[in-house]
């Protein structure tokens, strides 16, 4: 690892000044950034440690849930009102990473994590447009089982790994930064010909918090091969109000299928909570899927997961 400067800041203003410097990178829990530095995927000149700023609030009010950018994953997941009122968030967090990481990792950091594409994460610099712009994409003609089925480009087929982000999109959350407030679904960007940029945030811009409106019942389903501690093959977050076995409103988002949390943009109002009807109702959203040969199975798996999430209650630990 290249040597790097380190500055621990005492307030947000100081953080902004430091973060604006060229080569500066914010560090909070560090669970992602330390790995990126170790693998030399990123080589910043200065680490701006924001971990001790007072942005750790977890507040539930009549207008919804407010999460400070530095609230820890473990604290949010354990919060009783998050668990009762926003279970998709608690489940997404609890199914993420490992207890040790959740004890360090923060809300803002989780949203800023980078893809798990094995070529991006390789032990040395392989052709990867996300890692080194212009170097090519190894995954398209290589091992692309984990690749996106939506939103990919010729330059990058990587998926976004955050579970939390998927839940936030399904719950229609807003992300507050030092520069703006934007819907969670607009935070991450599609690769186009600039796959090295994961989000729309500018250099030096810092996430301050997340606001989630009052939510209908919600759930998060993560499909993975190992019983725990693995990124999703596909995942789905749903928030739905139903009555008499019929959906009144529903919002869903998919993980593991796109370079960003993928909103399932179909209107499910009036659809009965029955397998076949649900399957027919969500099918149009998958017409746009453009898989690679090795990731084609995700089209079927993701649809099954959506139907499952809407029809079967999921335990908080998320295992089906």
């Amino acid at each position, binding site marked *: 690892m290249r040597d790097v400067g380190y500055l621990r800041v005492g307030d947000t203003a100081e953080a902004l000044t430091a973060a604006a410097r060229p080569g500066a990178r914010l560090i909070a829990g560090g669970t992602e950034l330390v790995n990126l530095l170790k693998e030399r995927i990123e080589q910043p000149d200065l680490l701006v440690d924001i971990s001790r700023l007072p942005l750790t609030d977890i507040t539930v009010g009549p207008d919804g849930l407010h999460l400070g950018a530095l609230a820890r994953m473990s604290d949010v997941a354990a919060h009783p009102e998050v668990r009762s009122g926003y279970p998709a968030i608690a489940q997404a967090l609890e199914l993420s990473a490992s207890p040790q990481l959740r004890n360090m990792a923060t809300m803002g950091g989780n949203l800023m994590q980078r893809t798990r594409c094995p070529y991006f994460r390789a*032990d040395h610099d392989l052709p990867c447009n996300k890692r080194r712009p212009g170097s090519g994409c190894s995954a398209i003609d290589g091992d692309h089982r984990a690749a996106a089925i939506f939103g990919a480009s010729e330059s990058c087929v990587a998926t976004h790994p955050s579970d939390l982000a998927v839940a936030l999109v399904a719950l229609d959350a807003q992300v507050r930064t030092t520069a703006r407030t934007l819907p969670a679904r607009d935070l991450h960007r599609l690769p186009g010909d600039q796959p090295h940029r994961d989000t729309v945030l500018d250099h030096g811009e810092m996430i301050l918090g997340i606001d989630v409106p009052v939510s209908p019942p919600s759930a998060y389903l993560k499909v993975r091969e190992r*019983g725990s501690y693995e990124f999703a093959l596909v995942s789905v977050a749903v928030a739905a109000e139903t009555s008499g076995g019929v959906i009144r409103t529903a919002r869903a988002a998919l993980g593991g299928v796109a370079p960003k949390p993928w909103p399932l943009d179909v209107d499910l109002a009036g659809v009965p909570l029955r397998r076949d009807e649900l399957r027919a109702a969500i099918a149009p959203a998958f017409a746009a899927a453009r898989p690679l040969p090795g990731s084609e199975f995700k089209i079927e798996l993701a649809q099954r997961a959506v139907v499952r999430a809407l029809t079967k209650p999921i335990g908080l630990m998320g295992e089906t």
Partner: protein
Amino acid sequence: MTARTRVDGWAKVTGAARYAADHRLDNLAHAVLVTSTVPAGRIAELDVTEAERAPGALAVITHRNAPRLSPAGDFYVQTVLPLQDDLIRYEGEPVAVVVADRLERAGEAAALVRVTYETAPATVELDDALPDAYRLGAYFEPITSSVGDVAAGLERADVVVERTYTTAARHHSTMEPSATLAEWRDGMLTLYDATQGVFNVRDAVCAALDLPADRVRVIAEYVGGGFGCKGFVWPHQLIAPMAARTVGGAVKLVLTRAQTFTSHGYQPPTRQTVTLGAARDGRLTAIRHTSVNSTSTYADHLEMAAICSRAMYACPAIETDHLLAPVSTVLPTPMRAPSDGPGMVALESAMDELAYELDIDPVELRLRNYAERDPTKGRPFSSKALRACYAEGARRFGWADRPMRPGALRDGNDLVGWGMASATMATFAAPASARVSIDADGRVLVEAGSQEIGTGTRTVLCQLAAEALGCPPERVTIRLGDTTLPPTGMTAGSSTTMSVGSAVQLAARSLRTKLASMALAEGDAPAELARLDGDALVVEGAPRTPLRELIGDDPVGAEASWSPSTADVSMHTFGAVFAEVRIDADLCLPRVSRLVGVYSAGRIVNPLTARSQMIGGMTWGIGQALLERSPVDRRLGRFVNKNLAGYLVPVNADVPELDASFVDEHDEHAGTVGGRGIGELGAVGVGPAIANAVFHATGTRIRGLPIAPETLLRGDGDGRD
């Protein structure tokens, strides 16, 4: 014998146990490897200028300036010596080692070594290399075997099953990454090494560096798992002493996790075809089992997958054959459980398919073909209680309630399946020696070069010594893992308890005889006459003698050696494995919910450590069946996932309560201990039992392990892409 907790438990729960990378040496420098990024070709340009100027850099060693090495001997199966030429034979081959005063600086300097390659075309996939497959001349067993007339047997069969099965490339993934500390001091080289064979390392280092054996000492006090990758000797174990010699001091070389994927072998993928002919009553008329596995382009590793078919079932006609297909990866190497592990996936899956062709219960089919003697060698088995394993396993599992029809056990949204398989493992043994001594206070010291890699060697040797000496185990201290101790073989092939255990027993008996003779002042008094009682010896026909009176102030000891006998028997361990899987019908995720293994392995010295070995092995089987695979990228010629995020080993949530037990047995041919080795047996049979259970749950026959959700989604059984 009795269950005993581990004698090294205290050291391991307090953090006091020292693994190779934990040793504290003065002025320790750190070495970091630079490895090739292409699978074949040669180094075109190599620029170390910046690296040499980097802060703290002490040396940058490449093929240009590395000391010339001599051939490193038989245990250096890799054959290619590190940093001796500009050729590249596999991705991950060392091209430079950088030594610096601190690890961070060594890493930074290593990143400044500039290498460009002239790449050559490379084949890395087994399937692509099949046209170049070849047959080796010899291995530890004959490459081919043939008894009876297989063609005639298939001709007269009522049913013939011929199927091809594949197993994936897998990596050992010990929790401890390999590490070597090398220290030159006063003309002596001392290595602290993560190895399953200290003598192998010493011999290879002596040969490579042209040193006499008495100037090299190798120590492996604790080893954080081996499973085969630390058995033979590999480039990093020569590079560390080379680097230490260059800087004239102590150097620590710890492999990164990524480097462990290319530095000490892997289990090669296999492609096996099994042909079974059977009469309507289930009796086999012919078995043909052929296997091909990938090896490197520069050396041979044969996965003798078909040897299981030579001994498993009674059959008048059996043919086996093995081929190798060369690919541009690092040389594969044995991995728990080699040969029989992948081999039984094919044989036992085929037996299940045959059971369904014939509509005969899978256990019953195996019983109808039970081999009372080795059908290929024509010899009796040293001891075999597999019949009891089937019966006890079926009872514990509740097999009698199993409906034959696939898909019959659905539970809500879960498809439930029950499957079974036999397990077998060839038994290995190696010459071993040991020294047992006692001091005036009655403290016993057992010394043998052998290694503790997690299996419980210290504990079992302690028990065997205490039993042979007639003293409580608490009095016994074990010293292992040091080439200054009596020579033994490597900790591999499940051979240690039988081999080193027998040597320890012989030495302890010899010491007991010596003590009895001293007490009775006779030439050769029977050992049984003497019994240790604290710091005194009690001998029938003589007064209780304080040891200090008997032996004086200096310890007295005895040394003994043991060698495997060439008794005319066939020696294998056996077992029966029963698995229950539950598969979410929507999401196609198979999970193992129950696993029962009952084993025939001769005498079990310590039920606690033995059972733990079996449970650990069964967990490897879960990995083989459902998770573990190391795909290679065809264009880049590299393993795709060189980390524990991408290479999936089973985690806590993947492993249910496991039921492992042994049948009572004593094998009079298994050394003086009476027990055959068990370290690998638990990892055999679980994979096919799970695959058979998946068939029972879904009706989909999967012939490629590990089983992927997408394969079950497709329902066509061909395994992963």
